[in-house]
């Protein structure tokens, strides 16, 4: 009995030893792999840091060089290089996000400088003169870039001494490094608002809606408006759910129809429907004309002279974009979007923000060239099928008159937008079909 007890403990001890050894190896392996992960993460941060400082340096040099050139080809080259450096700096910065922290002010700076460089590049390439204030802006941006470089410099010394750790815990950055990055967020690198014709222009934030008039309504009046305007679309049960204050003040409502519940947003000033949407549920099969339904629906909302320009169908939903038409020209900025249930044809959503912001009666200049002139012009390999006048939005929030030339080249569909006076291309769009998209011309 004693022998067997001893045997039992011996076996148990041996098993425990084996277990401990296995655990030891396992822990060692996992600690090693943890160290490798940690090194990998820090190497990533280190690479991003070098990429960031080098790119900001290149950006600054190219902005500075612009001071001593008045040659447009040279300017194009410098601005192209500056723009590429900005993209590279932005890519590096995206890696420096951490839990509860993002380098958003610095990211905004490098993205805006890149966009502004592209704008100057575009001006120079067209042979347009770069104004004194634009040269002054390039200088200011360069000196802000210099501030960024200066503030980031101490980190490089740390890396040089070895053992600098950007992050010791998953999701957080080294405190010292965070404080350097934070110092760049707190206004120490302020630069003037950039208003220019580009997608990151500060001017876009200052846009006012042109159509909101009629004075502020109450939420109760809003509910009444919804019942009146959407009642024909089979909507009932309007419940006020709160207020929004984004571009302008809006009222939010929950609505019901036969298929379920949806949501509506109404402009507090005047009570225009900003948007409404239902999640599409299946409906009974019914034959209908989607274009007719869409036009009829927006007309009932008070949008007249609207022409369908694009539709796409997928998963039982038809999206249709309609634009205002004035003097035979399609006004793309005045767009209303409608969502239709593809089974039964009833409207299950509508979006009018673009129209509310932009719509106004425009005075369109008479073009120097006629549509026939444009039709007979050759645009690369494009086989022209139709030409019409259009007002198109520009990247900085403005708009311009252009001829819209639609055609195909090697089976692909293209839109070429041409200057109405010179016929030169101002923009080219390619239609990428896939979700049964359809042009409505």
């Amino acid at each position, binding site marked *: 009995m004693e022998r*067997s007890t001893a045997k039992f403990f011996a*076996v148990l001890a041996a098993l425990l030893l084996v277990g401990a050894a296995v655990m030891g190896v396992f822990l060692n392996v996992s600690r090693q792999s943890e160290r490798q992960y940690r090194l990998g993460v820090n190497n990533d941060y280190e690479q991003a840091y070098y990429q960031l400082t080098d790119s900001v340096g290149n950006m600054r040099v190219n902005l500075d060089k612009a001071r001593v050139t008045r040659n447009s080809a040279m300017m194009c080259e410098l601005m192209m290089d500056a723009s590429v450096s900005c993209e590279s700096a932005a890519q590096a910065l995206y890696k420096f996000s951490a*839990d509860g922290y993002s380098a958003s002010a610095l990211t905004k700076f490098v993205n805006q400088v890149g966009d502004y460089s592209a704008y100057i590049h575009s001006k120079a390439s067209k042979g347009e003169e770069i104004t004194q204030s634009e040269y002054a802006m390039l200088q200011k941006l360069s000196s802000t870039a210099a501030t960024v470089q200066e503030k980031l410099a101490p980190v490089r010394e740390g890396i040089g001494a070895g053992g600098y750790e950007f992050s010791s815990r998953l999701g957080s950055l080294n405190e010292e490094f965070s404080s350097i990055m934070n110092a760049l967020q707190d206004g120490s690198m302020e630069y003037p608002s950039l208003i220019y014709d580009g997608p*990151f222009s500060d001017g876009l934030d200052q846009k006012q809606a042109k159509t909101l008039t009629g004075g502020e309504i109450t939420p109760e009046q809003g509910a009444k408006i919804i019942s009146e305007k959407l009642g024909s679309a089979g909507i009932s049960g309007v419940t006020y759910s709160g207020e*929004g204050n984004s571009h302008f003040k809006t009222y939010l409502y929950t609505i019901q129809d036969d298929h379920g519940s949806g949501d509506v947003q109404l402009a507090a000033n005047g009570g225009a429907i900003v948007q409404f949407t*239902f999640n599409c549920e299946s409906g009974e099969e019914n034959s209908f004309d989607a274009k007719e339904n869409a036009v009829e629906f927006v007309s009932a909302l008070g949008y007249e002279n609207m022409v369908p320009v694009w539709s796409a169908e997928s*998963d039982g939903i038809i999206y249709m974009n309609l634009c205002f038409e004035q003097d035979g020209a399609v006004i793309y900025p005045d767009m209303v979007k409608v969502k239709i249930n593809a089974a039964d044809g009833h409207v299950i959503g509508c979006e009018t923000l673009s129209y509310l912001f932009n719509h106004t009666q425009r005075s369109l200049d008479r073009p120097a060239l006629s549509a026939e002139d444009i039709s007979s012009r050759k645009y690369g390999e494009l086989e022209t099928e139709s030409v019409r006048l259009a007002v198109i939005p520009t990247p900085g929030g403005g708009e311009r008159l252009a001829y819209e030339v639609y055609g195909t080249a090697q089976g692909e569909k293209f839109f070429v937008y041409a200057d109405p006076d010179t016929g030169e291309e101002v923009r080219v769009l390619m239609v990428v079909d896939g979700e049964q998209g359809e042009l409505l011309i």
Partner: protein
Amino acid sequence: MLTKQRINGRGVLVLALILLLIAASLLAVGAGKVAAAGELLRYGSRGESVRQVQSRLNGLGYWCGTADGIFGVNTRSAVRRFQSAKGLSVDGIVGPKTYSALGISPSSSSSSGGYSSSDLYLLARCVYGESRGEPYVGQVAVAAVVLNRVKSAAFPNSISGVIYQPYAFTCVSDGQLYLEPDQSAYNAARDAMNGWDPTNGCLYYYNPATATSAWIWSRPIMLQIGRHNFCK
């Protein structure tokens, strides 16, 4: 003898337990394979391509259930029925010939304002991971915030850049991004890509019941949808 047997039994039990522990700790759980556009689709495939095929089959009257992006028994049977009706070899696998008979280009990318169908799938996953259980308009709002970030200079300039920005979205950090989105998430993502933005330009949102960042509370709230506050 009996004791010895019992001891051996115990030893085996302990050994088995240790082995089980080791095995459990070394066990890696495999994940379902997601089919990329253009790939052969067969029983067990998942993803946006599968969903496109299902949607098309349903549209053509070969009912295969809800287009959920999972190639299951119903989908296989619908593919077989379709192949048989079109005189194709009936193997239940969607290859180039079946794709073409369905009128779908295998490497198709959609045309929602410059975004591709892989962007749609990624956005739908993000919507599902972040806001399933929210009202439909709240899901559209989450998708719209992603797209507003793409347009903003202060954030990455692509959908993947925004979604995978470190620590930007909880669902990416905790792996919920890998859940298969439902139809409502797809519809919400598509609404946002087609221009619906219930937040009117918001760049952030948080759930006031669970938000831990002190900074986010300093942002002015633009509107509240479901359990989320949306801010600029």
